[in-house]
């Protein structure tokens, strides 16, 4: 979503993005003239008149599970966004019985919070696991 009109979105997709992504952008490119939606989400920059790089993860119930907002010159890490969605999906599928520690990615150990884990995280989770 940006302040550009849907017509500019089409031109950008036709003339540039479709050369980066085969078949063009598959998902809806939303238009937010005047920043009315961006303002509600806290990402509209009133001085510059544009949206900043806000990214919101919204679960199937419509609950915001996470967000990140960057200033314009630094791009996002798409894989990190996907990793976070995968982590939230795992937690949801476990009905909250499992949690994903720092550095978690699919296939890695999760934590099962409970009385027997108190003070014992050091036994099942090592600091290096945050970085591998």
């Amino acid at each position, binding site marked *: *979503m*940006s*302040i*550009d*009109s*849907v*017509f*500019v*979105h*089409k*031109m*950008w*997709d036709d003339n*540039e993005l479709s050369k980066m992504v085969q*078949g*063009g*952008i*598959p*998902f*809806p*490119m*939303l*238009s*937010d*003239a*005047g920043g*009315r*939606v*961006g*303002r*509600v*989400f*806290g*990402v509209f920059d*009133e001085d*510059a008149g*544009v*949206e*900043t*790089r*806000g*990214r*919101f*993860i*919204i*679960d*199937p*119930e*419509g*609950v*915001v*599970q*996470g*967000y990140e907002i960057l200033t*314009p*010159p*630094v*791009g996002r890490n798409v894989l990190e*966004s996907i990793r976070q969605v995968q982590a*939230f999906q795992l937690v949801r599928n476990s009905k909250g019985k499992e949690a994903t520690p720092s550095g978690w990615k699919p296939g890695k150990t999760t934590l099962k919070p409970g009385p027997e884990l108190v003070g014992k995280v050091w036994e099942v989770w090592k600091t290096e696991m945050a970085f591998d």
Partner: protein
Amino acid sequence: MPEDMEVGCARPTGGPVGESVESQPLKEPASIREVTAMIQVGKKVPDFVAPAYQQGRFISVKLSEYLGKWVLLCFYPGDFTFV
């Protein structure tokens, strides 16, 4: 799910949906801060409608139509910008 939109000479626009958001006077900075404070992790996302372009179609997208799915909503400064 999204419906096709009539495309005329006017630039289509959307906006927030629902009483609480619509009734906020958006011009005063103080109330803007109030509105932006609405986004909190673990809390419901405010609904909105917005015109969109998708694969050759101009459509109208309402966020609440995506209930039941995971949504990644991304804002960015502008088309044809570089990052």
